[in-house]
């Protein structure tokens, strides 16, 4: 397919602009020569060519509305269309972000109620909706932990991160100036309690734990983990990336977490990936409420207002209060499912993941063979040993079968990992068809490994030379 630049012809455009009847301003004078480029080299195309170009591109895209998308750890669940309808209401889209409180009562109420809903679902004392996405929420959460110890006059230079953690955890810790220390997993895939005991001292600010972890396994010793961290005065941080596994079943607050960051775009079904911005609310226990970012929404009798009058706050973490439109969609999701619906969604997500796990177990190595939560992690080790077919080959072959490949090579402690998260909305027929494809590929890897290594075979773009692309990237089109 040609690039839009390649179909460009000088002088073509999608519209004729009539002659201007306002005085012409010299752009050099108003902006300044030094800020202007001589040549923008924008493509010039007719409307029909423009429409065809982008329609063709969009037809080569893949999304959850087109097919099964079991991208582990990303929770690519179906995004109900009612969320979009509600978020498009003019009362939500038309309000100016700088409108004063009295003109924004409805929207402030929604944000306030959303915080209360999240407090209820996660068992936390208070929530902020300000962070723009998951990693931003992590950063805000770790900033609060830092501030907590500063205000107590304690110097705690390190933070513990399990070896199964998302890469953003050590990054957030390091951005806040902590040295990160890796905490080992035990053979069952949980926290190595002995190792935690040896690392947890009064120099350690806390532990950043994802529960269930990135192996899709619930931390069986979570109460003991919390007790060890707290006994040394540390704080327990929860990465809510995998919250889809426990909504309605357990609450981080009840498990003694001090901070939890969520990804509304995962757990609460708002579009992400290429589909929209994220939203990373952070919930805290009583101990940390004073450090929440400002402004906060305050309810007075029956009205709502912004307040920045919280002297211990970490300050502002974003120009405006979160990605509002995303929050409206997540709010709609919570309202339309209700408490029962959220719990049932959790049950189905876990059931679906276990169904796939059991069905594929005879064909692929399963390094941690126990009941999983919302996702399961396999290894392609057997295929590598049998015929040199790697997990990346299997993933690319899946594209030929019409599926988005699962997450691969993560978590790092599983060699040749592939991590399947089906989510709750998929039917048994879809899960069966996907498993059949995975089983067919396992068979092919034995009988005709070259076919798997050459995949994808049916896509508009064939297999890329990833090494060449990384070593000699060529991403700018030149005429």
């Amino acid at each position: 397919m040609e690039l839009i630049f390649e179909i460009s012809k000088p002088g073509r455009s999608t519209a004729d602009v009539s002659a201007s009847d306002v005085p012409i301003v010299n752009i050099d004078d108003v902006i300044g020569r030094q800020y202007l480029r001589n040549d923008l080299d924008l493509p010039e195309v007719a409307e029909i060519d423009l429409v065809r170009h982008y329609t063709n591109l969009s037809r080569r895209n893949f999304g959850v509305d087109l097919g099964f998308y079991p991208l582990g750890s990303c929770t690519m669940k179906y995004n109900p269309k009612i969320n979009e309808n509600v978020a498009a209401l003019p009362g939500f889209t038309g309000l100016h972000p700088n409108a004063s409180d009295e003109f924004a009562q409805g929207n402030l109420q929604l944000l306030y109620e959303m915080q209360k809903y999240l407090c209820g679902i996660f068992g936390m004392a208070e929530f902020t909706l300000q962070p723009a996405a998951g990693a931003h929420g992590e950063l805000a959460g770790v900033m609060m932990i830092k501030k907590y110890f500063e205000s107590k006059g304690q110097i705690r230079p390190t933070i513990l991160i399990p070896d199964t953690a998302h890469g953003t955890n050590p990054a957030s810790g390091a951005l806040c100036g902590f040295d990160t220390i890796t905490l080992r997993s035990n053979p069952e895939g949980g926290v190595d309690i002995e190792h935690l005991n040896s690392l947890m001292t009064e120099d350690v600010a806390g532990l950043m734990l994802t529960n269930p972890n990135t192996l899709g396994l619930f931390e069986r010793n979570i109460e003991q983990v919390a007790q060890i961290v707290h006994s040394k005065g540390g704080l327990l941080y929860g990465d809510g990336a995998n919250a889809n596994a426990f909504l309605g079943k357990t609450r981080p607050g009840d498990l003694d977490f001090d901070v939890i960051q969520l990804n509304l775009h995962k757990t609460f079904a708002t579009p992400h990936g290429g589909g929209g911005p994220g939203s990373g609310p952070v919930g805290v226990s009583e101990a940390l409420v004073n450090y929440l970012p400002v402004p906060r929404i305050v309810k007075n009798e029956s009205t709502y207002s912004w307040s920045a009058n919280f002297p211990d706050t970490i300050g502002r973490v974003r120009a405006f209060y979160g990605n509002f439109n995303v929050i409206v969609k997540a709010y709609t999701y919570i309202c339309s499912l209700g408490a029962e619906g959220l719990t049932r969604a959790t049950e189905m997500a876990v059931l679906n993941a276990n169904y796939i796990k059991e069905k594929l177990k005879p064909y692929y190595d399963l390094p941690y063979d126990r009941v999983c939560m919302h996702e399961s992690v396999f290894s392609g080790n057997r295929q590598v040993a049998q015929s040199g077919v790697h997990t990346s080959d299997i993933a690319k072959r899946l594209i030929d079968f019409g599926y988005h490949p699962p997450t691969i090579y993560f978590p790092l402690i599983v060699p040749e990992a592939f991590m399947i998260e089906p989510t709750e909305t998929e039917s048994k027929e879809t899960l069966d068809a996907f498993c059949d494809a995975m089983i067919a590929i396992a068979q092919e890897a034995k009988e005709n490994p070259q076919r798997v290594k050459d995949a994808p075979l049916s896509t508009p773009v064939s297999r890329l030379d990833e090494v060449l692309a990384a070593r000699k990237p060529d991403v700018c089109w030149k005429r």
Partner: protein
Amino acid sequence: MSKSNPTDRLYSKDHEWVKDNGDGTAVVGITDYAQEMLTDIVFVELPPVGKKLAQGEPMAVVESVKSVSDVYAPVTGEIIAVNKTLEETPELINQDAFGEGWIAKLNLENVAELKSLLNAADYDALIKEEKH
């Protein structure tokens, strides 16, 4: 299969090799086993010449198609030279990890540290164990 580990040098548990030049300097790189585990290396971030590193501190970064990994200084010392050709041709590490793919040369601060490293036979045993 990885190449055999030369006996003229020492090894760290983190898969770096150190070759003592006998004149107070040493050359450092990653082992052939390490490059094999990393797969195709696409970028190497080299330390600045003159940088002082303690044993075990991150010295360089190697990025492969699969992952980004730190290379740790196997001994304490000051960087006196780096293998600039890796900036353009990082694949040298894949092709010749023990030779052309060397990463840095450093001044040995504490020769006694060499005793904490593994010889080729011990390192053979270590990677044999890791493979299981």
